[in-house]
Structure formats: C-alpha cells, structure tokens
C-alpha cells in the first residue's frame, strides 16, 4: 500500500562510468527501500541499456535491466501509481540506488520510494 505521506523522490544521472553511479540517500538500518515508481529517460543518441540496482560502498548489484532503443526513449513504470500498488523494487538496508548505462551517454533515473521496516 502506498502511503503518500511517506513517499520521497530522487533523480540521478548515470552513464557508462566503470562501476556505475550511486545516487540518493542510504537506506537506514533495519529498513528497506520500497520503490513504487521508476522513470528513466535516455539522453544518448542511440540504444542505451540501464542496469538498475543498489550499491554498497560503490559496488553495484543489478536488480533489473531497462532497455532504451533510441534517444529520448522513456521508461515509466507504472504509468499510474494506484493507492494499493505494491513496490516494484526493494533495496536492502545500507545500500543506495545505483545504475550503469551501456553507452557513453546519460540516462536520467527518477524513483519514488518509501523507507520502512
């Protein structure tokens, strides 16, 4: 269940930097980060795959792959966030959101999430 009062959001910009790029805050101890919405936008002039996941001390763990075929392709999941939605990704305590692009161009990554036990 989505609690609108608990939602936070963050946007990160990732590219093909070796090891990927962490963004946002660290998930507090004894909690998990429940991600309810993910929106990405490919700025690279061509195909660009996003590896999305979480990182600990900068070391990334892939949770999902999101494909972009062309520049300005967007991935928006879900299109409409319903009140009874379940989280689409869960990040463990002590980690941060993380991403790595396959091409030498930016992908903007926006997430809405709640940190809770």
């Amino acid at each position, binding site marked *: 269940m989505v609690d609108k009062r608990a939602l*936070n959001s963050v946007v990160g910009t990732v590219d093909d930097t070796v090891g990927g790029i962490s963004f946002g*805050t660290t998930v507090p101890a004894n909690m998990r980060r429940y991600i309810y919405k993910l929106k990405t936008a490919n700025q690279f002039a061509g195909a660009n795959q996003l590896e999305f996941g979480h990182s600990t001390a900068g070391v990334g763990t892939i949770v999902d792959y999101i494909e972009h075929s062309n520049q300005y392709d967007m991935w928006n999941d879900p299109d409409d966030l319903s009140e009874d939605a379940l989280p689409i990704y869960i990040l463990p305590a002590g980690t941060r959101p993380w991403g790595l692009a396959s091409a030498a161009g930016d992908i903007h990554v926006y997430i809405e999430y709640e940190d809770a036990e």
Partner: protein
Amino acid sequence: MEATLLKESHENQFLREGYLLALQFAQGYACFRILGWEPSNVKPYSLGAVAAASNLAAWDEIIDANTRRYLMPPEERWIYHSFYGVNKPKARIFFQYPTRQDRGNLVSVQRTITGDVGYIDGEMSPYDGPFALKSQVFTVHELYPAFQCYNPLGDAMDNVMLNIDVMRYSYHIIKNRDLIKDILTLKRPGRLHTMAGIDPEPARIPDWLSDLVGKDLLAYSKTIIEEGG
C-alpha cells in the same frame, strides 16, 4: 493474506456531560464531574523541518505565535483532553510531561531521543486518524507537555506536523467522600487516568488545584487506593 488491524476511533474516548473523571497526581486523585464539553483542534501544527537522522533543535511546547500553549488550559476552570496524529509516518515523536520529565522509558536509564524506545510515530498514530490511545493527554492549568521529534531516515523531512484533536471540559470538583470512594474502587462508572505517567511518579498537582481539592481529600484518595473498599 493481509491482516487488517481495526482501531477504535479516539473520539469514543472523549467524555460527556455527567461523566466522572479521576485524575491521579503524585499527591493523590482529584475527582471531577464533567459539566460540559466543547471540541477544538490544532491542524496542522508544524514542528518544522527535521534533517536526516536528526532531532528538532529544542523541545516544542505546542505554542501559537505569541507562545501561548495550545495544550494548556488558559484558565483554571477547564480541563483539556487531547489526542494527536503524526505526519510523517516515520517521524518519531518523543514526549515530556511535565516538561523536562521524559516519558516512555523502559530500562533503568532514560530513553534517548534518537533511539528505538518510547516514541509515537505516524504509523502508530496516523495524521488522519484513528489516533493512538497512547497519544492521549489530559492537561490542566499550569501543567503541559513538550514534544521532540527524531527523523530516523536518510532523507530530510521537510515539515513534520501534528494533528491535535482537543476536547475542552468544564467541571465540578467532587468532594463527597462516598462518591470518591465509589469512583476509585470502580463501583461507579468513571474514567481513572494517570497524569503524565508513572516513572518516577505521576505529575505533581498544581498548587491551585491542590487548594481547590484540599490536601485532606488527596490523602483520602490515597487511603482508598491502598485499602480498597
């Protein structure tokens, strides 16, 4: 399978005309008959922004722009009965009542205001209700609580707010010893309430109320509790 916990509305806890109320202070019980009631509220009451993993700079006595305390009756002829809900859901509200007396301790040392003990957060007492029974506060003139907030998250909270539901009562002090005895021994339906907590003791009765009730009746109420009826 999802389990749903249904909470009773805090509004059912408010007293009505004619109800009997016994407030336990450190010196004994003061017994009242409720004469009338008038609802009020403070919504929203902003505690302000709270940085990640941080507290408020100071305890907040829930005041207006002229530092008048919302939760303290401005006159001796009223009792306030309040409940509150919290926004954000993870904002941890710690409580002192009276001020500088920490409540919600569990072990032999006082709880901290950054720990996992002795708070009410917005999941326990949601901003839109139903408010937690343990958010209940009775106040009389010259006796008021203070609140502190801790943000346990890695993200700043832009504005922590309280939704405070207040019922203002007028009252008559009960001096009949038989009736006091019946109230304190639960032979007459009435509400018994400990003012502020029990560790190390309930709040001390304000001098004005002690004078109105009388030290002999306060002592008598203690005798009733100790000896039964």
